[in-house]
């Protein structure tokens, strides 16, 4: 399964992401999920970035929160909504908004 997982929160109340183990996983950071791409707590990047996955963060959701693309972790690719649509249709089969 090729799964695109949408993460829209910074503090999550579910541990679903830790259990998912698709053959291919893309983690799409949207809304407050984009803090995972930029914030370090006490110097440590978000543990989400340790997952075995491709990482994407929505440009407009970063900028909405005053987060410059220069702050984004090097593992994360900054994308537009149009690029997100292409990813959903071309690179993944199913989605999970957790």
């Amino acid at each position: 399964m090729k799964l695109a997982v949408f993460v829209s929160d910074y503090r999550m109340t579910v541990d679903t992401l830790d259990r998912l183990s698709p053959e291919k996983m893309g983690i799409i950071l949207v809304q407050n999920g984009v803090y995972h791409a930029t914030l370090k707590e006490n110097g440590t990047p978000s543990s989400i970035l340790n997952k075995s996955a491709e990482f994407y963060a929505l440009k407009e959701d970063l900028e909405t929160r005053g987060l410059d693309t220069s702050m984004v972790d090097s593992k994360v690719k900054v994308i537009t909504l149009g690029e997100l649509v292409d990813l959903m249709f071309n690179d993944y089969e199913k989605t999970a908004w957790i």
Partner: protein
Amino acid sequence: MATTKLGFIVQRPPYKSENPKLALTHAIATQSVEVYLNEGDMVTADIAFIGDGVLNCKKDQKAMDYYGLTSTDQHIKMALLVDINIWVCKEDLEKFGLSEDDLVLDAEEFGADMTVNVVPYSEISKKMEEMNHLLFF
């Protein structure tokens, strides 16, 4: 003649967000989906409760007594009555120290044949692979 298989994964506890309720009501709505489809075509919805979602399956909920609301265990019975497959993650139940005895398991009183199935997460994971689309609640 085709069937689209939806997998509903309920990951949140009851009564905080509307998510678990909406998972059940939407799954039950598969009963009338044919009116929109061609003869022989189908959409099915199976429900898996994982994480804190397993708390939805606790028996003897009294939401009707206190809040005038159909309790989630009663709602699960209605889903069984219309032959929805329901799985509950065994490891999560065990984490909470809950056993099958603590859960709503069947709807015999309504004449339902289906029962709630407590299964290891690996089985839920396999089912997720088989589904056409996943909907997380």
